[in-house]
């Protein structure tokens, strides 16, 4: 039996439901020998700002039990360098490219989108709203439904392309922010971003990373991510979701699809194994074969609850 792997996130058709997550796959051309972008359902770029950013001081990362904490500080080459240096080859390879967008002010999100609008070969935008809004006192855009709806609405007006919002699990009201993003015009929601966390070096009596706080990712957060995908799917059943959080195996991916995600992103697993997205895709296919699932789409939202 051959399994139909195709899926779709809203209007965006995907050859398969496995993507590489933002911040774990560079600009799409860094892991060609392990995981070429054209074999993925889609790839999400490192978060891009209007201008290059240096990022935070080191240490930036620390491993924790079945996870890791990072505070990279959004180091990136800037949207213009991405469009000039990476996008032409990604286009030539036929990769489905999702541009992850962030800014410290709303105008910066619009600048990134405007630059990409001049280019062919951008399939969708994913807004990173876990960035502190410097013009609103440093609170993250994704924590305030009013700000989030406004930001999403402004970006919506700036592009006809699919617009995804990547939700922060640290928001006080997850479903409220999900509704706000949809009200602002988001076509789909990615969830979840990393969980705010810290680690301590007890000998040095110092935080383990220079930024003190960072984002927790990896298998440690998977149960939380699943719960959040399911919660948002239940509240907003018509809204396409992209599930992410600690996916290491094909079975993990199936769980996210059942909880309501139309596709999944693989992040930290790439650090452990740069070929992880393709391995996970193969395992997903194997799961479907083994359990008589003819098409991956059948799994989406297929959870039975008593």
């Amino acid at each position, binding site marked *: 039996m051959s399994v139909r792997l195709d899926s779709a996130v809203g209007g965006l058709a995907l050859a398969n439901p496995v993507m590489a997550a933002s*911040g*774990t*796959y*560079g600009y799409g051309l*860094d*892991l060609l020998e*392990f995981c070429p972008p054209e074999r993925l359902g889609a790839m999400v770029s490192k978060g891009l700002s209007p201008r290059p950013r*240096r*990022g935070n001081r*080191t*240490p*930036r*990362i*620390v*491993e924790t*039990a*079945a*996870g*890791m904490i*990072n505070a*990279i500080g959004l*180091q990136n080459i800037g949207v213009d360098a991405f469009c000039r240096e990476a996008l032409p080859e990604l286009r030539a390879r036929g990769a489905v490219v999702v541009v992850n967008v962030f800014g410290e002010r709303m105008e910066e999100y619009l600048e990134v989108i405007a630059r990409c609008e001049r280019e062919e070969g951008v399939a969708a935008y994913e807004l990173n709203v876990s960035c502190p809004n410097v013009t609103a006192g440093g609170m993250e855009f994704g924590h305030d439904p009013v700000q989030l709806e406004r930001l999403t609405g402004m970006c919506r007006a700036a592009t006809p392309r699919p617009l995804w919002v990547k939700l922060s699990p640290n928001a006080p009201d997850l479903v409220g922010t999900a509704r706000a993003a949809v009200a602002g015009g988001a076509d789909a929601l990615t969830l979840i971003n990393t969980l705010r966390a810290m680690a301590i070096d007890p000998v040095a009596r110092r935080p383990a990373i220079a930024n003190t706080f960072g984002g927790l990712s*990896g*298998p440690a957060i998977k149960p939380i991510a699943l719960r959040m995908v399911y919660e948002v799917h239940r509240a907003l059943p018509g809204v396409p979701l992209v599930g992410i959080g600690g996916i*290491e195996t094909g079975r993990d991916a199936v769980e996210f699809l059942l909880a309501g995600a139309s596709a999944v992103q693989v992040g*930290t697993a*790439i*650090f*452990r*194994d*740069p070929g992880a997205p393709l391995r996970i895709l193969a395992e997903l296919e194997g799961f479907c074969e083994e359990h008589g699932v003819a098409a991956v789409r059948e799994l989406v939202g297929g959870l039975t609850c008593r």
Partner: protein
Amino acid sequence: MAVCVASRTDLSPTCFHLTLATPEPVVAEPGQFGMVSCGEGLDPLLRRAFSLAGVVAKGSGSEVELLVKEVGKGTALLRRAVPGTELRLLAPLGRGFTLEGGAPAALVAGGIGLPPVLFAAEAMAALGVRFDLFLGATTAAELLEVERCARACEAAGGTLVVTTDDGTRGERGLVVAALERRLAAGHRYARVLACGPTPMLAALTLLARERGVPTEVSLEEPMACGVGVCLGCVVELGDGRFVSACREGPVFPVERLAARWWA
């Protein structure tokens, strides 16, 4: 690739030698590194980065040598690995030392910084490049692979200088001080290649800059991926940019590094 532990031998109270048999040939330069899985489960989650201590052809594949210090969960698991244990290895990665060039060179290794320096010493001896090797450790019991270092020096027509912080073997004191004494006594080196703890490399960089000796150092930074995508292992350069040690290093000419690094 899946690799197999071929041997594991204790070298000191904290360090051990690990040989990994690879199914395919590995062609590596001294200073390059590998990412090694430490176990099957999800904890520890990430592979560990180790500078390669040597690579030899074996059958249709290679044997990759590592010198490992037990410092945490991952290295403790590796210390318990028995021959036949299957691990995953990503190697070779990064940029290594410049082996050919001015001679004589001074090779300087502190503690568990030895692996890339040992690999460089044996490769330079084979290439006929002259060098002296400065090998430092906290105490005699923590000196690693002294006999191999001595053989490489002999083959290269150079001298092995051993130091221990507590004076239990060789010259008493820090390894960089031993190099400084040689320089003060009139020894001249065309360049320095080094790896060791950050304070040692910072002291060495300061000395090399004062003396105008070109120096390459192998830096250790926490790494998640080893292949340039996590941006965890960045090093600050003189022009203010952060670059990934896994891609642009781990070996850097000290002229490229930000002053903050040694000052």
